[in-house]
């Protein structure tokens, strides 16, 4: 059956407004959330939808993010589509419950507005918050702009709730840069979103009192490992589901997504890999360099969990050098989290391109075209160097040393 692309409405929206619109259109049964800059606006806007009867949602104005995630887990386990949203310290406070949500296979979708972690306290963008949760069992999708935030949130519902997956999904956008920046966003009709997300169908709802079940039991040496193995398998299965959801979404929206976007990579000899809003600036830089005859390209990673290792390896194979840009550090002397993942994936790459890491933009430090150009120059230099294979090359970009 051919699905017609829906007539979409263009609206000038901030990232937070786009996320709130996606939430309104998803129309969850329960939202339990707590305000934190720069996510606050999502909660506020959503509250007005509740007050004005635009959604059927029961809004629970909890007293903390720990309770936000606990109540969301409870609601989703009860048999209701449940969502929350957060940033930074809020995500950190949820940390315990992130693992619980994933381990219990609760399909929650959560907008996560990236902000630096204390200390020192800072309200601006970096990725240390979501990167801290990268091994929590949540799927993670990063957005370049407000449109992607909107599109990713809607797709995330299908991914999380797919019976082969049943895992929570965090959809991120860069705090302030995207959350508070206004752009044109194409919105699907409400009905198209409703049809796309379908009915929530958790297989073991607590409210099905005729079929009582015990969720969250004590599981010891005899079964815990099997439960974790199955959880790991669900993350593998998620890859196919993510691509299928993207296909279906392309059919109704005309916007197509993959694990990552390869920009001007066809004949590239060197490239930079980024996450989030920096990709927009980096594309502009690539265009300029290309005009000057440079054979360079860009890869923007969209899906960080599951990490598309083999696919990225293939995309980067044949390059001579790769620079990986991280808006977070691991404080391990081994570079940022994206670097570690990409480098591990490149172990199997044909010709093993040289690679280096740029940690940049912590606490919202501006990343401008000049800095990115500088990164490209360094990556190009790396092509000429013999493989040292000893220490990772980690540069801190745009910081006073």
């Amino acid at each position, binding site marked *: 059956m051919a699905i017609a692309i829906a007539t979409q409405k263009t609206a000038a929206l901030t990232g937070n407004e786009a996320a709130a619109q996606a939430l309104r259109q998803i129309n969850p*049964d*329960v939202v*339990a959330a707590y305000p934190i800059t720069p996510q606050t606006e999502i909660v506020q806007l959503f509250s007005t939808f509740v007050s004005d009867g635009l959604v*059927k*949602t*029961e809004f*629970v*104005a*909890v*007293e*903390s993010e*720990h*309770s936000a995630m*606990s*109540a*969301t*887990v*409870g*609601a*989703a*386990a*009860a*048999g*209701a589509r*449940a969502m929350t949203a957060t940033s930074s310290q809020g995500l950190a406070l949820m940390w*315990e*419950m992130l693992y*619980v949500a994933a381990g*219990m296979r609760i399909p929650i979708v959560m907008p996560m507005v990236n902000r630096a972690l204390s200390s020192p306290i800072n309200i601006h963008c970096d990725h240390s918050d979501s990167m801290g949760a990268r091994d929590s069992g949540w799927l993670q999708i990063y957005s370049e702009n407000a449109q992607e935030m909107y599109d990713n949130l809607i797709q995330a519902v299908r991914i999380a709730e797919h019976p082969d997956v049943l895992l929570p999904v965090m959809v991120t956008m860069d705090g302030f840069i995207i959350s508070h920046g206004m752009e044109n966003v194409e919105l699907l009709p409400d009905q198209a979103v409703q049809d796309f997300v379908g009915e929530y169908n958790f297989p073991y709802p*607590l*409210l*099905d*009192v005729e079929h*009582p*079940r*015990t*969720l*969250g*039991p*004590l*599981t*010891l040496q005899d*079964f815990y490992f099997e439960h974790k193995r199955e959880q790991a398998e669900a993350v593998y299965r998620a890859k196919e589901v993510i691509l299928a959801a993207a296909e279906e979404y392309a059919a109704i929206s005309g916007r197509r997504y993959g694990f990552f976007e390869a920009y001007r990579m066809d004949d590239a000899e060197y490239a930079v890999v980024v996450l989030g809003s920096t990709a927009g600036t980096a594309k502009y830089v690539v265009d300029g360099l290309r005009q000057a005859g440079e054979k360079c390209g860009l890869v923007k990673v969209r899906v960080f969990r599951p990490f598309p290792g083999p696919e990225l390896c293939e995309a980067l194979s044949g390059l001579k050098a790769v620079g990986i840009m991280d808006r977070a550090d691991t404080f391990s002397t081994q570079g940022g989290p994206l670097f570690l993942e990409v480098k591990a994936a490149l172990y199997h790459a044909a010709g093993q391109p040289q690679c280096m890491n740029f940690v940049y933009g912590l606490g919202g430090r501006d990343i401008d075209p000049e800095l990115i150009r500088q990164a490209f120059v360094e990556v190009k230099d790396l092509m000429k160097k013999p493989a040292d294979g000893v220490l990772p090359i980690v540069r801190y970009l745009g910081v006073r040393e």
Partner: protein
Amino acid sequence: MALPDLAKKPQRFTGGHRACAGCGFPITIKIILQAAENPVVVGCATGCMEVTSTIYPYTAWRCSFIHTAFENAAATVSGIEAAYRSLRRQGKIQQDIDFIAFGGDGGTYDIGLQSLSGAMERGHKLVYVCYNNQGYMNTGIQRSSATPRGANTTTTPAGTQLPGKPQHPKDLTAIMAAHDIPYAAQASMSHWNDLYRKAKKAFAVDGPAFLNVLSTCRLGWATAPEDTVDAAEGAVQCNVWPLYEVEQGKWKLTFKPKKPLPVADWMKQQGRFKHLFRADNSQLLESIQQQVDENWQRLLERCGE
């Protein structure tokens, strides 16, 4: 309700769980679940109750049950109750269901107090039950803010310089009553009829209800398994654990000992207070009695007695 009738009601918490022989809380759970007329959904905090009743692949719960973590039973169940309200409003569910959150005193007085306060303040229609065994028993008998003054615990060990826990327990039931919830009560597993009646009231109110139920831990209190009920009874008879309720803001005693026993009589039954009967601790014993008397007087005033 006569005891034989209560015994005939179906059990939603079965035997075969792995609580210690003589543990108090299974009695508490059974009486409360029997008081619920509707199907129930139970949320439970980490602690002895959870770890002894749900060892995978077995469960002692014949009703819907969820455990997520230690400090958040109230928040978890508030989410479940919100889901219920949402689905009921949408016509997706018709049935009446009761919601219960169980937490130990650690999960309620201490680490879970914020989550509990939030859920009560928001007005969810749920019954929160603190099964209070006066210590962190699951992790090996550490002090909580519900542990009686002078008790020997593994984090307030009775030594040569310190005679057990220095502080008197905090009055959580009064704190919950101060939330102006429709029903808050203090009960004991030893007084099953009183507990049953209070649980009935808790399920009946249209809003949050809180029950603080003294439930012996024979291991932590160091009592014989066959003395479990007596040990809880003693706490009531010496006014360490008065039975009362606060209904729509009105305080009412539900049991008054004919002649209150000395606190020392109750303490003597339990190994955790053994050191208090050394001559050098006699003053402490007196001071504990004094504090219990003062609290009792204050309660009588609140209850208009």
